[in-house]
């Protein structure tokens, strides 16, 4: 209990004094995870919509795979990305291992299935509503997907936020591919793991509270941003 109170205090102190170390890893956390979320959304949202709208032979199979991929253990993803990016691996020449880019790659792999799966669910319901109309109006395949993505944007934002939530709190994969190098690849979660390992529970907890506050802040900011288009409230 004392540790928690102490952690809260320390978190407050770090934030109020704008501790440069804290600011650095917080910004890196945000940068890595937001980039990963944007890339995963660009991949996952249309993927989910495409699966919802098209009937193809392996559709059920694709959905099952997607749902299975949602539960990918991050450590395993990290390990695979590590092997691929390591000097002797197929992408070793790019020298990406132990860089933020490697961390982004790992997070994209982890959250794209989540975003695709949630958006597939949302778009499927919308498609059921719109199906007859879009067929009747002779909308092209691309127009259908565009319409569904636009009209389903609220549900899709939820999908993206779910991906963000998973990525910002993720530690296993980015620890492996990033290496938790100070001033290079250290982020909030890896720092928490490090401080916990060292037994500095106060600092670890403080970082934990900052992480939670960050996740809440990003969610609120996005909701407020989307709330500004008053004309399209549902």
């Amino acid at each position: 209990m004392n540790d928690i109170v102490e952690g809260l205090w320390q978190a407050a102190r770090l934030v109020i004094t704008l501790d440069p170390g804290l600011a650095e890893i917080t910004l890196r956390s945000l940068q890595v995870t937001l980039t990963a979320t944007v890339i995963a959304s660009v991949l996952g949202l249309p993927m989910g919509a495409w699966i919802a709208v098209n009937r193809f032979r392996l559709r059920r199979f694709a959905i099952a795979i997607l749902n299975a991929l949602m539960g990918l253990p991050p450590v395993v993803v990290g390990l695979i990305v590590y092997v691929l990016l390591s000097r002797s691996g197929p992408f070793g020449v790019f020298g990406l291992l132990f860089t933020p880019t490697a961390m982004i790659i790992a997070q994209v792999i982890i959250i794209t299935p989540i975003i695709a799966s949630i958006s597939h669910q949302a778009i499927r319901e919308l498609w059921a509503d719109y199906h007859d109309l879009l067929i009747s109006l002779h909308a092209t395949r691309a127009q259908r997907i565009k319409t569904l993505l636009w009209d389903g944007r609220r549900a899709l934002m939820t999908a993206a936020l779910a991906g963000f939530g998973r990525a910002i709190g993720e530690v296993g994969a980015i620890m492996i591919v990033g290496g938790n190098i100070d001033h290079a690849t250290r982020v909030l979660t890896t720092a928490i793991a490090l401080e916990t390992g060292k037994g500095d529970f106060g600092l670890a907890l403080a970082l934990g509270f900052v992480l939670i506050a960050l996740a809440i802040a990003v969610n609120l900011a996005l909701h407020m941003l989307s709330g500004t288009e008053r004309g399209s409230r549902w």
Partner: protein
Amino acid sequence: MVSAILPLVLEDVELRRQGKRILGPVSLTLEGEGITVVMGPNGAGKTSLLRAMHGLERINRGRAVWQGGAEEVRARQAFVFQTPVLMRRSVLDCIAYPLILDGVERKMARARAETAASQVGLDVTLTAPASVLSGGERQKMALARALIRAPEVLLLDEPCANLDLHSTAEIERVLIAARDRGTRIVMSTHNVGQARRLADDILFLFDGRLIETGSGDAFFAGPETPEAMAHINGDLLP
């Protein structure tokens, strides 16, 4: 005006769903001008027939043939569904949507949507979400959306089902105006008075079969089948 995509020819069209024949075999030719009214009791197959004409239903036997290429055939007809499909957009954007699909610039599309809304007597806040519309207003919205591409053939499935007398009269005026501009109209209705007022031709369906066809005047003067007779007299069928 002779529509390029007409005549529509249905040859022994049959729809089967879950092992049951729900429509057909139906053969008919749709050409010329005017309003064709599809009548028949609930479950007779009116919706199925209209949807089959429009290409929304898988036809199990026979075929429905329009003139011209698939692209123009689809682009030049419009359908008003028995239950209006609401998009999660403003009323104005719902109506403008077909134009947006055609690549019309948004501002222009909205201006034309506004005109279309006033044509059907849709007197609501057009910037409000479509979901706030009442049942009758939704049908007017759907009609405005269907008319906005100025289709050659307009198929309507009970377009006045939720409308009061005033709105019904308004819609009938809109439909007659469209017909007079050369739009070929096929619509279903349960309103015998409306059928009398609008029908140039009648298609009478019973249990999935087309049992009587003819001009509206002849049909209402003396239907040939007892089923049609009972239907327009409001008798309860055995």
